[in-house]
């Protein structure tokens, strides 16, 4: 069947509109990258738009040689690795157990988890708990309280439910116990959902700043997100205060900020294309069956 002229016109308009959406989405990235390679004077003069003006790599050298930056970057890598390992371990064992219909009290355990999505202790009770556990200034303050995301748990649970029951039956006849079945049979079949979970959790851990902001007061423990937050916030606070002499320092940090932002987004941009094909599948698995 042939398209009407109106529909052809719509097609054209649609493509143009969506190209515009792509441009707007990418605009902030391009603008930051352009600033990161630009000279201070050119940024101050408002000349930098989407292309570097007064091209220089000095700013990158400055940031690279800052030991605080490297230390916080290293911290972020550590927190992300440990945190994600805990996330995956806890989510997998929990999701596997509650995916089994033979688990007596299954609904109770599911409800126990799901209820926390709708009601929770607020900021203060959490703060009091973490500090009274003695987690201040330790990695546990940021990796343990977020060990399981309920949304991810449900995604994983429905993935496990979708695997054929017969697999486990034949494994158990061959003498495999629950642990071995999970480790040797189920997990190798769960690569798409595991990849999704690793991406989601790793990104979450990489991006997390608030727990560190709340519980850390030693600079050498800061993740890069706090380092960046202090760069950004420090400048904008003095800006708000309207201090004249601060304006110079704010301008200097303008391209340093851009470089720091580029460097802290980079790892996500690098893994994103590889994991992308998995996560769309992963999310759909968990959510479409309503």
């Amino acid at each position, binding site marked *: 069947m042939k398209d009407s002229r109106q529909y052809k016109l719509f097609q054209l308009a*649609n493509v143009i509109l969506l190209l515009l959406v792509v441009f707007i989405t990418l605009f902030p990235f391009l603008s930051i990258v352009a600033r990161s390679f630009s000279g201070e004077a050119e940024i101050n003069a408002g000349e930098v738009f989407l292309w570097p003006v007064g091209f220089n790599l000095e700013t990158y050298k400055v940031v690279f040689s800052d030991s605080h930056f490297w230390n916080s970057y290293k911290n972020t890598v550590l927190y992300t690795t440990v945190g994600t390992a805990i996330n995956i371990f806890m989510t997998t064992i929990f999701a596997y157990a509650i995916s089994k219909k033979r688990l007596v009290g299954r609904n109770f355990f599911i409800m126990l988890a799901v209820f926390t999505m709708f009601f*929770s202790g607020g900021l203060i009770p959490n703060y009091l708990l973490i500090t009274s556990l003695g987690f201040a200034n330790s990695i546990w303050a940021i990796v343990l309280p977020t*060990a*399981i995301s309920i949304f991810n748990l449900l995604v994983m649970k429905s993935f496990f439910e979708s695997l054929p029951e017969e697999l486990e039956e034949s494994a158990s006849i061959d003498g495999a116990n629950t642990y071995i079945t999970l480790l040797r049979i189920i997990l190798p079949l769960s690569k798409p959902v595991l990849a999704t979970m690793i991406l989601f959790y790793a*990104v979450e851990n990489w991006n997390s700043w608030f727990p560190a902001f709340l519980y850390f007061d030693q600079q050498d423990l800061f993740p890069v997100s706090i380092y960046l937050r202090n760069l950004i*916030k420090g400048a904008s606070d003095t800006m*708000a205060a309207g201090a004249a002499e601060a304006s110079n320092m704010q*301008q200097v940090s303008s391209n340093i900020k851009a470089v720091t932002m580029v460097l802290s987004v980079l790892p996500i941009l690098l893994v994103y294309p590889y994991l992308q094909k998995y996560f769309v599948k992963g*999310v*759909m698995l968990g959510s479409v069956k309503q």
Partner: protein
Amino acid sequence: MKQPIANAPHEKTHIVPKRSKFASNLRQVKKEWQLYSLLVLPVIYLLLFKYIPMMGNVIAFRRYAPGGSVFGEEWVGMRYIEMFIQSSKFWEVFMNNIMLGSVTLLVGFPAPIILALLLNELRSKRFKKFVQSTSYLPHFLSIVIVSGMIFQITAEDGPINAIIRFFGGETILFMQQADWFLPIYVLSDLWQTVGWGTILYLAALTGIDESLYEAAKIDGANKWKQTLHITLPGITPIIVVLLTLNIGKFMQVGFEKVLLLYNPLIFETADVISTYLFRVGLQSGNFSYATAIGLFEALIGLVLVFSANYLSKKITGASLW
């Protein structure tokens, strides 16, 4: 040959009389102890990090003494909640919360539906993939980066002011003017969430039966009519479920984002319940008062999600539970 033997005990449980159900459950737990052992750590986690803080909300009704119990020292009743509702700050932060929440919902909720419908009309699979991948990207950005980008883009020397000057306008100091906070907050939120929001709608769209479109074409329905009578009804259940969830979260304005973006110059439009709570509780140390504020906010959220769910079940039959 080695077949349903493993299943046999399950079938038996149906004929076991009721009073020994406990015994049979116990037997099942014993038999499956390995499966149950997997639950130990997650349940400890939930109790310790989710349910204890939940109970910790009780200090909203008790006086907390520094260094004292997480659950407070003595009952003071509704004192702190009344204190909040009667304080002059209450209406300011409450109204800001409602303004930011409702405009975000109004703009942010339909946008992914529209984007998904437009993506669905694309002929080229590759172009569709490309637009999708690009539009998901902001979802993976840290809120710290997003706030940094907002500062840079709206800065005096930033690209938006460059455009304004190009067209002969005056430079605007966006982040220092209270009136600009709402549009900046909502538009940046739209930028960050719209693409990711399309995933579920696109999945629902692929689930619509092709033969419905064939039938409609034969009946002479054009694309617009097909969208109206087949596509939209096809994704209504998912729209309803997501709307319910969004209404439940409507009071939870992006706390971290506001905290990163605001400054005293724009408190009058930017300060929300949770950021006020943060300043009162953690910067001034009024733990009980701040918990009362948080509890007030959480209860509104709970009431909202339950009523939205109830209404959607009544009206459309689709619901979260």
